[in-house]
């Protein structure tokens, strides 16, 4: 069953775990962008979530509360972004970058003195005999709860955006905020809630790193995961299920290239380490070239009002 020394079932299980932080952050950012707001401060929110989650878990001794703390931390930071872009109409890209800078610095300050401490651990969800099924047992039944949560939240976002009234309102706000306002929808409030959701998801993604993946707090623990999450949203053409594919593709190639190295493959390492990025570009090219020309955003499914600030003129 092994290909070149690599067991595919184990590989799939690994990539599911590796992709969790970027999946959570990406699905949160997708909701934010669907509402018409571009928050590039994902990295800042993730790392604040990582330290808040860590501090909460160590302080209470409960890893579940830790994730709640991480989500709360990410959401709190996103509140700053919301205030600046929605109330004060600041430029969204610049504010997001400021958020990243501030988040990185603040998280490091908060984490002083917490190095080398082990947080309370989270084990795999006990599925009992199901986990012993060959192949499927490894892939589906041996993960911690956050892995399942990441898939569930993507499904939930898809369903809400497609079928629920709240989702339709959110999309309307993202496509044409003036029309939505004219129809009586509270653009500011919808966007605020979307931003908070994005912050909470990014915070959870960061907390996953500090509570399960590493698990420890160290400065800069996210190492650019927030930027990858942003790229995955674009890759997914703002469609929730595509976020899952994009995240697994990227996480999968990253894990695969390490596995190829470990199994002694002869492919030069330098090319292997570039592969996640190049393959992501390649797949995106293939996906987007099938969608007609025009050079404008409509063809790429981006919300039409993305990045523009809304000001009610009455």
């Amino acid at each position, binding site marked *: 069953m092994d290909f070149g020394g690599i067991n595919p079932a184990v590989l799939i299980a690994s990539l599911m775990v590796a992709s969790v932080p970027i999946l959570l952050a990406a699905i949160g950012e997708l909701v934010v962008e669907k509402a018409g707001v571009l928050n590039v401060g994902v990295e800042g929110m993730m790392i604040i979530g990582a330290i808040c989650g860590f501090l909460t878990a160590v302080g209470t001794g409960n890893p579940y509360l830790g994730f709640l703390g991480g989500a709360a931390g990410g959401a709190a930071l996103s509140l700053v972004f919301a205030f600046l872009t929605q109330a004060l109409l600041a430029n969204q890209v610049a504010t997001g970058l400021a958020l990243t800078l501030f988040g990185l*610095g603040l998280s490091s*300050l908060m984490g002083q003195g917490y190095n080398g401490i082990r947080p309370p651990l989270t084990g795999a969800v006990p599925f009992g005999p199901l986990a012993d099924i060959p192949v499927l047992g490894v892939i589906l039944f041996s993960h911690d709860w956050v892995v399942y949560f990441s898939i569930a939240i993507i499904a939930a976002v898809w369903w809400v955006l497609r079928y629920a009234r709240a989702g339709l309102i959110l999309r309307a706000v993202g496509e044409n905020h003036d029309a939505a306002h004219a129809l009586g929808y509270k653009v500011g409030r919808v966007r605020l809630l979307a931003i908070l959701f994005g912050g909470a998801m990014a915070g959870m993604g960061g907390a996953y790193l500090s509570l399960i993946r590493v698990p420890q707090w160290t400065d800069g623990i996210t190492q650019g995961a927030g930027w990858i999450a942003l*790229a995955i949203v674009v890759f997914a053409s703002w469609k929730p299920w595509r976020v899952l594919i994009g995240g697994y593709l990227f996480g999968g190639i990253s894990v695969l290239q390490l596995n190829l190295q470990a199994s002694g493959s002869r492919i030069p390492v330098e090319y292997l*380490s*570039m592969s996640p990025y190049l393959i992501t570009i390649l797949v995106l090219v293939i996906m987007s070239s099938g969608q007609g020309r025009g050079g404008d955003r409509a063809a790429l499914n981006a919300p039409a009002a993305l990045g523009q600030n809304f000001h009610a003129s009455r």
Partner: protein
Amino acid sequence: MVTLEKRPTPSRFWAAATPIVAVILTMLAGGALFAVLGKNPFEAIRTIFWDPLFGEFAWYLRGQLLVKAGPLILIAIGLSLGFRAGIWNIGAEGQYIMGAVFGASVGLAAYPTESRLIFPAMILAGAFGGWLWGMIPAILKTRFNTNEILVSLMLVYVAEKILSKAALGFLRNPEGSGFPGSRNFKDYSAASNPELIAGTGMHWGVVAAFIAVIFAHILLQRHILGFQIKLAGQAPRAARFHGVNPARMIMLCLGISGALAGLAGVFEVAGPAGQISIDFNVGYGFTAIIVAFLGRLNPIGILLAGLLMALTYIGGEMASTNLGLPSAAIQAFQGMLLFFLLAVDVLTNFRIRMFAKGVA
């Protein structure tokens, strides 16, 4: 309730006053942060803002401001043209790296010949390298409709891997006992980019930054292309009616910003950094995005924003070393400065109205 009322025209008073107000607010908030960390807030603020300009070592640090601001301004000018046209080049860091690698390759290939042609050749190679790296997202966008944000960002990581390969492999110093890193350009005068006037920090990269500011200003104010760029960003459909070819705009903007970032890279590697190493890139490509927005995408604004950012870096460093402030506090401080600048900027375009009665 407090509401915002749009001004008929942007207030010129506030456009000039917002940076000052923002800096003052940052000093207050930052001072509070430093006090919470147990440091004297006045001393910290003075160290950050005053000392690099007028303090004990200002004779040295003023020049360093230019060294730090030069690449930021050069890259930000290029980015601002694209941003104005709605073309989001997030991969300037990658174009910066490739410019440095291309330029350094040309220079090191010519070693040890001394010729006046080598430095200009390196500069051209650097601009070409950055341009090339910017062309990849440009071509993918015009041909395949691929989003340039993702492509340019992914290419940053690819460029970093290529940089590693260069430092460890094809550009490694053959006389370096197997250690990573290229030859140092300081030892190769035909290829180096030293200070033009001692103590001022002005090297060719800084000069290039000033030239870029002037050119961009003229381009945007006087040249038809500048008008088209602004139009493409603010009213894309009107731009198309006017005859602006979107594909040409994309190629031009990504090409120019790539070339300028590549120039910044080659000037930096031949000058202040001195060699190709694994950690050559320090994030100028990303900081330049901040500088571009801080400067409101305006060339003169970018010049001032670049100098202000450089001041916070250098002053912050001194506060770290001399006062024992964690460098993370300086990062948070820079974030706060940006927040306040962005927040106060609202007053340029909007008036605050308290308890206004709504129009029925």
